[in-house]
């Protein structure tokens, strides 16, 4: 399946440094967005470890022909260990962590894996569907049937890479159809731009590059409170 893709990351309007990281590798079908947390430039380190670690792990997985879902989940868990190790020996990096959402495309099948609140969406036949699972308090509260959410529940992560608890990544395998459009993004987009607006842009953008530019522009116009990172992947018709 022929894919076109592009990604863009932006500081936003309120932050002094960009702690997000992204990876767009059409040749290997690997697309990643990571949103780092932690002061003193440590957030960047964590999110970079996430993107870099996935490339290495998947290169090995391709050689060994292992199950893609297991390979990607295992890779994410290994990144968690990397981040923990990196923060252990450097006091300035203590407490650094990262979310991750990755899309690995192999022919007409794809794997989505995520930890934290960075999201993956699929646009198919005019429907925008979230494929990832948010690991935040709001999502857990909704699952428990709560009608009123804890203040700031959207921003309280229940699982991260580099946290005290070993993450259990959410992973799923999907069939890719011609014309599908995939969006990976950090909460700097989803917290600023409504889903209906995101859908309009993803559905009508002429190219992935234009779509990314427009989404970043809209998030910034709405306040740009966090770093904004988007990756768009179009499956050719």
């Amino acid at each position, binding site marked *: 399946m022929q894919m076109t893709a592009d990604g863009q990351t932006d500081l936003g309007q309120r932050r002094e440094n960009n702690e997000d990281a992204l990876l767009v590798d059409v040749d290997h079908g690997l697309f990643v967005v990571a949103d780092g*947390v*932690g*002061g003193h430039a440590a957030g960047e380190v964590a999110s970079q470890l996430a993107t870099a670690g996935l490339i290495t792990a998947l290169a090995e997985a391709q050689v060994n022909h292992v199950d893609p879902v297991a390979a990607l989940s295992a890779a994410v868990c290994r990144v968690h260990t990397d981040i923990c190790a990196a923060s252990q020996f450097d006091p300035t990096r203590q*407490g650094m*962590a990262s979310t991750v959402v990755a899309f690995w495309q192999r022919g007409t099948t794809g794997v989505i894996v995520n930890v934290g609140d960075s999201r993956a969406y699929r646009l198919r036949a005019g429907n925008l569907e979230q494929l990832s699972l948010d690991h935040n*308090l709001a999502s*857990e*509260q909704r*699952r*428990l*049937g*709560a*009608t009123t959410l*804890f*203040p*700031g529940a*959207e*921003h*309280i*992560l*229940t699982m*991260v890479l580099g*946290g*005290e608890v070993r993450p*259990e990544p*959410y992973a799923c395998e999907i069939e890719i159809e011609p014309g599908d459009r995939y969006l990976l993004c950090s909460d700097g987009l989803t*917290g*600023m*731009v*409504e889903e*209906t*607006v995101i859908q*309009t*842009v993803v*559905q*009508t*953008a*002429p*190219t992935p590059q*234009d779509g990314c530019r*427009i989404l970043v*522009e*809209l998030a910034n*116009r*709405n*306040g740009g*409170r966090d770093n904004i990172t988007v990756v768009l992947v179009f499956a050719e018709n």
Partner: protein
Amino acid sequence: MPRLLLKFNDELLKVIDSNKDLITIGRNLKNDLQIDNLAVSNYHAHIICQLGHYFVEDLGSTNGTFVNDRKIGKWALTDNDIVTVGKHTLIFLDAEIDSDTVGLEELQLDKTMILDTPRQRERLARTEPQAEAAPSGPPGRLEVLAGSTDQSSYELTSCLTLIGKDELAEVHLQGFLAPKVGCYISRDRSGYGLIPPEKKSRIRLNGQEVKDAMPLKNGDQIEVASYKFLLTLS
């Protein structure tokens, strides 16, 4: 009272109706629900009723407990949840789920205590009210000066208005040569903005070619291909 269906390879083995607040599951005979299979730990999991809600909790089993194919530690059960223990599945049927049951507050407080790590405190501190993104003031109007469209003027109420031939376009251009995606008009707190869909689009603002997003003001004239619009803001 919920009902549990025990299945193995799609074959229904047992229907469990119990009034107990705790149902233990495992290979040991002392369990309420005994499953004689090596994939099941001696004391594998239990289903517990707390404050009117049913939870399934793994008891440190060797092979884990899964709900709807996801590995869980503790899980709030809802109707039709599929609990997998070894090679056996338990289907949780709860016809009378009462979401108003008291006690959720206590549970959530408990949760936040667990979540209260330095990282999460930092994220919480970063949190600000979400309301500011909402646009304010009366909506602007877009009048059609030239070109064939489905209406002669449009009220710009949404956060993003698309002008084009696309089915999603609110300002629907008619005619064979009309662009599918002409341009976007965004609306936020600071007002309206013009966003070209691509760098090479033929969009003009007051006669000037537009490559990047531009803020819009009252009386601006927007040209998309051979179509022309006038923006009125009150």
